[in-house]
């Protein structure tokens, strides 16, 4: 019935992208009431189809592999003008299935190279405000998972991750990962983890510049959160961050603070075994620090009996030699402290 309409179907990837772009511009403005609904619907159906076609060019389908030359043409046209921005902005106007295709297109484009250059990265550096839109998606139930998936692909570019780390958005993540909706909270947590572990040098720089507010917030909002998942994920991530060699100076500072020690000792006492085990991996750094400040030594000595008992009782479900030897080491270390005093 709509055959006539589809007659002028574009063929080349460049044309497909252009056509998509025109329809996205239409969709962007289509809130206007003077356009007849039937006509709008037709265009939206066409747009959905085009987006689906673009996805199949990039990913291939059951019959065909993606052709790198075709992908390159598509990518070039996509970034030549603002199609990526339009696609992101118009996402709320697309139907449920098309949103998923759009998300996959955005994800795929991040890895496309033109003459070995990551063209998406260059584009995003010039259009970095798109990250603000994607991050704000976590506040919208219908968009969060789509924008979240796009965001995680974008932060594979170091410069993009750096922009977010240096922005105020980082503070918002402390809220996002505690949203009551598990799908969204866990998506935000995955992004948060990626931001703080992926690009080592950028992360180290961020932490050393921001360790005052960052770890204060980390302690007060995440490690003592009333939400079990938040605590468990946070203490695990903390261990990952502090045990990373590139963050060693941050780690030394972290384990020299008695406030931090107090929080970790409380986590060691949790009834959750998983939290106890993860907390131990952080706690052992306090004990292993060869230049412990006096107040840290004081706390460890004052609590040594309890600590030794507590630590001796933490046993991973499966035998773990490394864990056992860490335990012995920590206990030895705490015992030795007393001898030195």
């Amino acid at each position, binding site marked *: 019935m709509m055959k006539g309409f589809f007659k002028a179907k574009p063929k080349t990837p460049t044309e497909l992208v252009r056509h998509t772009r025109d329809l996205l511009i239409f969709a962007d403005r289509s809130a206007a009431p003077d356009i007849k609904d039937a006509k709008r619907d037709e265009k939206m159906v066409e747009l959905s189809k085009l987006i689906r076609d673009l996805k199949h060019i990039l990913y291939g389908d059951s*019959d065909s*592999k*993606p052709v790198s030359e075709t992908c390159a043409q598509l990518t070039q046209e996509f970034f030549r003008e603002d199609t990526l921005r339009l696609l992101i902005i118009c996402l709320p106007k697309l139907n449920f299935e098309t949103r998923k295709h759009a998300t996959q297109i955005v994800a795929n484009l991040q890895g496309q190279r033109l003459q070995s250059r990551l063209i998406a990265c260059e584009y995003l550096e010039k259009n970095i405000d798109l990250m603000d839109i994607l991050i704000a998606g976590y506040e919208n139930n219908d968009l969060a*998972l789509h924008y979240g998936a796009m965001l995680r692909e974008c932060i594979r570019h170091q410069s993009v991750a750096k922009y977010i780390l240096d922005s105020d958005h980082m503070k918002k993540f402390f809220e996002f990962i505690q949203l009551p909706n*598990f*799908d969204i909270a866990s998506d935000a947590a995955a992004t948060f983890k990626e931001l703080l572990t992926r690009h080592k040098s950028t992360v180290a720089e961020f932490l050393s510049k921001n360790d005052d507010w960052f770890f204060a917030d980390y302690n007060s909002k995440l490690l003592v959160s009333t939400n079990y998942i938040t605590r468990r994920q946070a203490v695990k991530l903390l261990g990952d961050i502090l045990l990373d060699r590139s963050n060693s100076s941050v780690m030394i500072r972290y384990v020299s603070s008695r406030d931090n020690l107090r929080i970790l000792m409380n986590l060691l006492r949790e009834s959750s075994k998983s939290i106890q085990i993860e907390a131990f991996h952080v706690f052992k750094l306090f004990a292993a620090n060869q230049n412990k400040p006096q107040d840290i030594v004081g706390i460890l000595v004052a609590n040594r009996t309890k600590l030794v008992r507590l630590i001796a009782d933490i046993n991973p479900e499966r035998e773990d030699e490394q864990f056992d030897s860490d335990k012995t080491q920590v206990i030895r270390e705490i015992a030795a402290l007393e001898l030195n005093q």
Partner: protein
Amino acid sequence: MAYEEREDDHPRKAISINQHYPLDSNCYKILDEIGKGVSAIVYKAICIPMESSVVAIKAIDLEKSKADFENVRREAKIMALLYHPNILRAHCSFTVNTSLWVVMPFMSGGSLQSIIASSYPDGLPEPCIAAVLKEILCALSYLHDQGHLHRDIKAGNILIDSNGTVKLADFGVSASVYESSLSYGWSGSSSAMSRMFTDVTGTPYWMAPEVIHSHTGYGFKADIWSFGITALELAHGRPPLSHLPPSKSLMMKITKKFRFSDHYDKTKASKNKRFSKSFKDMVGLCLDHEPSKRPTPEKLLKHSFFKNCKGPDFLIKNVLQGVPAVEQRFKRAQIHRLKSKSSDEDDEGDDSSTGEIVKHRRISGWNFNEEGFELDPVFPADDAVAKQVVIQEKGNEENVEGCDAGRGSGGGAAPSVLDSMLFLRESLDDQRQRVGQVIALLGGDEWGEMRREEQLMQEIVNLKMEVENQKKKRLELEMELELMKQLQLSNE
């Protein structure tokens, strides 16, 4: 473009998919337990602010689930992003203390597996099978088009509602061809749709040969194999080989090269069972050894077996009528299990003996015998250096009625081996590492003449002694500390 205008013909209505169920456990009132798995319990409940509508709540104990929640997160995400009348969606999910609650529609008929177990021990009539499977094909067609493999298709994961609606459930072990990028890096050389997976996942009786031989990799067609086994399951009342006790003795017998000429212990009823040619043909197509020769879900939908297929009303009259309620079936099954557990205890192939590791030789293929409507395993020849697969026996752990409850809800005879396989993989890696360490350690010449086994034995003895020593030391230290503490107290 393989997809054409299918979507355009049925434009999805503007989405108000999430009906915004409350994210607060106080809004729900739990009525009954309807399913239980290793780390999850499924409840029938009502959602008070939603006019007390009935829901199923799957409560996953996160403290019992593996080190990170990557799988839990993925499942929640998949269930939120799939939208199809034949796929069980989650209304919402949120955490309650150390549990994750996944709120889902309540499918009052429960799983086809439990319906068969309670009311159709010799299987369903063909028109019912066709009506159920057609819906599942629609779900699979959508799922594969979305780039997802279900990886655990079986009657236990097919749910039916009182209105005859059939839905595919449990995406706990599903995989997506698109979700590779973060772990695999960017590469666009081959089609996402032809991506191969290698992890051994699913429930043994239903697993495709290429899934078991994971070195070759598998794709969407693995689901079609399981679909074929599910068809046999619905027809006979259980999957092939399942009259044998689960993994342990089954695998022992396979090792001993038992030849199963007959995969269903022939009760009178099943002996007399006759199946139509089109059914046999359809199942035969699904059980082709060569994955690429198995039909796609779209192709299967056009098969003559699904012509003139009946609708939901037919299922209400012919399947659901007279079947006890989900919660009653669950209770009965539990009582039954307790009974059989106590009487089984000294049986040789006892399900409940956990923790035993049994080595078995892999099955190199299957022969589907269309005439007898049976499936025969083929074993590698004696001299073949068979790569050994180790399956750890687990207790017969799952029994699910109203809804899916965690990985590989085996329901009755089928044990889920996913967990044990994951565990074994880890422990194998661990062992490999240790062996590597030992070899490195023994690089010196003084050990040169010893055989590797002896070296290992020696190393084990040494390690044990060291552990003992450490334990002693620890005890001494603890006691010393205790003493000092007391001394300090008395000084103060």
